[in-house]
């Protein structure tokens, strides 16, 4: 009886393992070669490329788990159904209630897998300088030269030149319901076009004038919440030329769905000439803007809807309200 049981056991477990192994290898290979290279959001930047690799890697680990459970379930449905002609009586005895080997190996395997994934994720996060995610006002994983460039961006002498390996500081200002961009290294001009040089480390400084938004440059794989009165910094390195989409990915009110625009990555020389010509063309407009800063006081009576129900503007703001100096169009 005992012998028969153990043969049965080996027989079932062997069947399941063989099916699982074959299917897992096939599916993983298919995924790696057919799907892997096309996993969104592509390879336009270092963060996109890194996160694409991470996603693919997780898929390669997850697919065998999915297949394992599905094969097991399918096997159970097929073989251990009461309707099957000649269905065996269910297993009984202490082994039906507990099985030390099965339990311990399950716990050990899942724990090792999970700890490995946490370690893997942490390493990938650190070596990719935050993976394109918003690190708040005091980023801790930064590309070389970023801290210096960020500090310099607040001074009037900030500058950037092509092929200098400098970090380009871009400010993303979100408000209901649009994004605008300021370039502190080019006099702090503001524009609705996001143009970036290729092969350059970019520091996105994301802030909001009203509610919480989220700056999601899809193909660049950069995502950082835009919080009022907070600077949220995210880094990436541009790799390829092309255009990309920017969307708001944090619900910000009625027209959240329409809060998108597009940008492009161009060669360093093309970027330089665009930035210089825009700086000149926008000079008058820039003079009307508040001096470049990491955050701006929200318009207490405008876009944010007013925090005082009587309609009065915040009376004690010492900082001028963003855009208040600009004359009406």
């Amino acid at each position, binding site marked *: 009886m005992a012998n028969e049981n153990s043969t049965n056991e080996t027989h079932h477990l062997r069947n399941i393992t063989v099916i699982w192994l074959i299917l897992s290898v096939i599916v993983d290979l298919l995924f790696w070669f057919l799907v892997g290279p096309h996993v969104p959001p592509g390879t336009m930047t270092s963060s996109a490329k890194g996160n694409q690799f991470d996603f693919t890697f997780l898929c390669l680990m997850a697919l065998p788990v*999915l297949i394992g459970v599905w094969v097991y*379930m399918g096997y*159970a449905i097929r073989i251990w159904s009461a*309707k099957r002609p000649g269905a065996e009586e269910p*297993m009984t005895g202490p082994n039906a209630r507990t099985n030390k080997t099965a339990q311990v190996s399950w*716990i050990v395997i899942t724990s090792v897998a999970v700890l490995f994934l946490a370690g893997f994720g942490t390493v990938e*996060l650190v070596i990719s300088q935050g993976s394109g995610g918003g690190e708040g006002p005091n980023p801790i994983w930064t590309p070389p030269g970023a801290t210096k460039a960020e500090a310099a961006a607040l001074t009037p002498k900030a500058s950037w030149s092509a092929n200098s390996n400098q970090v380009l500081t871009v400010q993303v200002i979100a408000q209901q319901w649009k994004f605008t961009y300021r370039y502190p290294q080019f006099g702090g001009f503001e524009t609705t076009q996001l143009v970036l040089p290729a092969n350059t480390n970019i520091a996105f400084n994301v802030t909001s004038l009203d509610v919480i938004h989220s700056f999601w440059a899809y193909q660049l794989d*950069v995502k950082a919440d835009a919080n009022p009165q907070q600077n949220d910094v995210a880094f990436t390195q541009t790799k390829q030329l092309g255009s990309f989409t920017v969307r708001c990915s944090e619900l910000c009110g*009625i027209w959240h769905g329409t809060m998108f625009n597009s940008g492009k990555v161009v060669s360093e020389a093309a970027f330089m000439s665009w930035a210089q010509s825009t700086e000149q063309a926008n000079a008058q407009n820039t003079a009307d803007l508040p001096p470049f800063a990491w955050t701006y006081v929200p318009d207490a009576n405008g876009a944010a809807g007013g*925090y005082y129900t009587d309609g009065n503007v915040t009376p004690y703001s010492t900082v001028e309200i963003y855009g208040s100096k600009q004359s009406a169009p």
Partner: protein
Amino acid sequence: MTISAEPTTEVVTSAVVPPSSPVKTPWSQRSGWLSQHLGTAIVGAVLGYVFGHWLGNYVASGYTYIANSGQNSIADALALIFMTFGWLLGIGALNYPLAKIVGRSAPEEVIAKGWTKYVRYSTDHKVVGMQYIVGVLLFLFTGGLLAMAIRTELLNPTTHVFSADTYIKIVSEHGTIMMMMATSIIVGPLGNYLVPLMIGARRMAFPRIEAFSFWVFIAGYMVIFSALPYGGFPTGWTGYAPLQTQAGPGMVSYLLGFAVIGLGMMAAGFNIAVTIINYRAPGMTWSRVPIFVWSLLATAALLTLATPVLFAGGLFGLLDKTAQTAFYVTEHGGSSFLWENLFWFFGHPEVYIMALPGFGIVGELIPVFCRKPLFAYKVAAAGMIGVALLSFFVWQHHLFQSGINPDMRPLFMLTTELISIPTGFIFLVGMGTLYRAKIRFEVPMLFCMAVFFNFLIGGITGVFLSDVPVNVTVHGGFFVLSHFHYTIMGGLLFAFMGGLYYWLPKMTGRMMNKKLGLVHFWTMLVFFNLTFFPMFIIGLLGQPRRVFTYAKNLQGLNDFSSVSAFLLGASFLVFLVNFMWSMYINPVMAPANPWDSLGLEWQTATPVPSYNFERIPVIMTDPYHYGEVGAPALADFGDGPPAPLGSSSTTGSDPA
């Protein structure tokens, strides 16, 4: 070990007071219309609303929300608060505490006869369970209709059915109502009905608090529904400030709605936890407690400990909107991050409030249909407690891209991935129980298998989301939307349906129709997956959540998802038809134990007498001795020799 003598001797007073008691019945306890019931509750709610609105306008007449509009947040808030009080007063929930406060002896609640007990303040846990079924279905179908509206709008990226304004309010209302429903969908109906029956108790520890939790749950429905006539709220169910501060009066309904629902959640959790700990029958040691009861104990702990944070957070927001405090207003010294932290500090345990009861149902049902003992019982119980504990340490994974302190990210990535270890135990338990079983694929079993299928996808995609680098790609998009629908709908709702098909014969004495049940199951499973699986791809291709317009190239996938969603909606109509047909139109009497379960709840009479057990059973062993020859009987009912196992288990132990 944990034998408690007290409940064995105690009998609910109300249960033994005959209707013709010589004690003078107060008017509120009389049968008939001249007493307290749903009608007086509605009257109380209306009067409370009118009074509160008047009071608000009186004390804060200058505070119009929009100049000259007559809309006043203080009036709106007070109206809803007094409406809730009026509702509770009208139904009789406050009779006892008010009488005690003024030092009078409070009347005992009489359990009414006939169907009218279902529209009264009933302290019978079985009545409350049935009331909750109607209550959660009300939430579910309201939220479901809103979901249909969302999918209708997303049929086309450029042609719009709703305005952007209406759309965002539909999305917000859908999310909030569904989340509120999900907190109670298993704990409320099945938890309240079954816990005393499964642990061998005659009642809940706090029957009045139990009844209160139900009636305040319905008050919560009225409050959150009032957001629509108030003009809706634009924040989604997450209610982030400062959008919350900026929003119109519908936001008051959201903030107060969560506070009111929170009251019910705390009450329900407290009652269930105390009942399970103290009211177990003699011999019901911790290693004999049914696994469903374990899951409810873990859930109850979360309800009791996590909900106060939501309650306080909601009231802070309400004060910001009415009394002009600045908890969440950055300019005045508050912080929008405070809301994010408070909300998710509650919000992540909340996710497990929605998952654990589903695991419990699956663990309870699978042995019955496998005819095998539950595999690794102790691991299952430990897993549930482990999930409950860990769930308090993961909330910042919702804020990975928020700009909150980045050095915490590796830690929260680690804790989040660690929680998949105890969550994975339920798969070990399920797969171990299936091993060399003799599986009967009845409708409840099919739902349990579907939970494994769906929750596996939901759980694995959760690991993707917890990986900070991958989170950059998938946060805030349709990927995460699909992930939590797979866990909450694919896990919890499927488990609830399985539980309903399984226990309704006990609760009502009527069988659900099997053919319709099969149609319901297969349509729900297939169209659920066809609706939500494409959303993973939609999310990866860059569609953010809560948008009414999207990239043109995503229309094909969105349309596929929408059409599937309509058919998924239709599968719920199949359920409704089955429910009405089997329960009311053409009821078929259920056998005493239609699934040959060994559970204690099946060993009392159907319909369950109001005192549940004639004598409190003495529990001899655990309820999972399926397929074991010569196994000991589950319990000694004190009425002769215990019934042999495996025979039709109700005979000989039936107290009726």
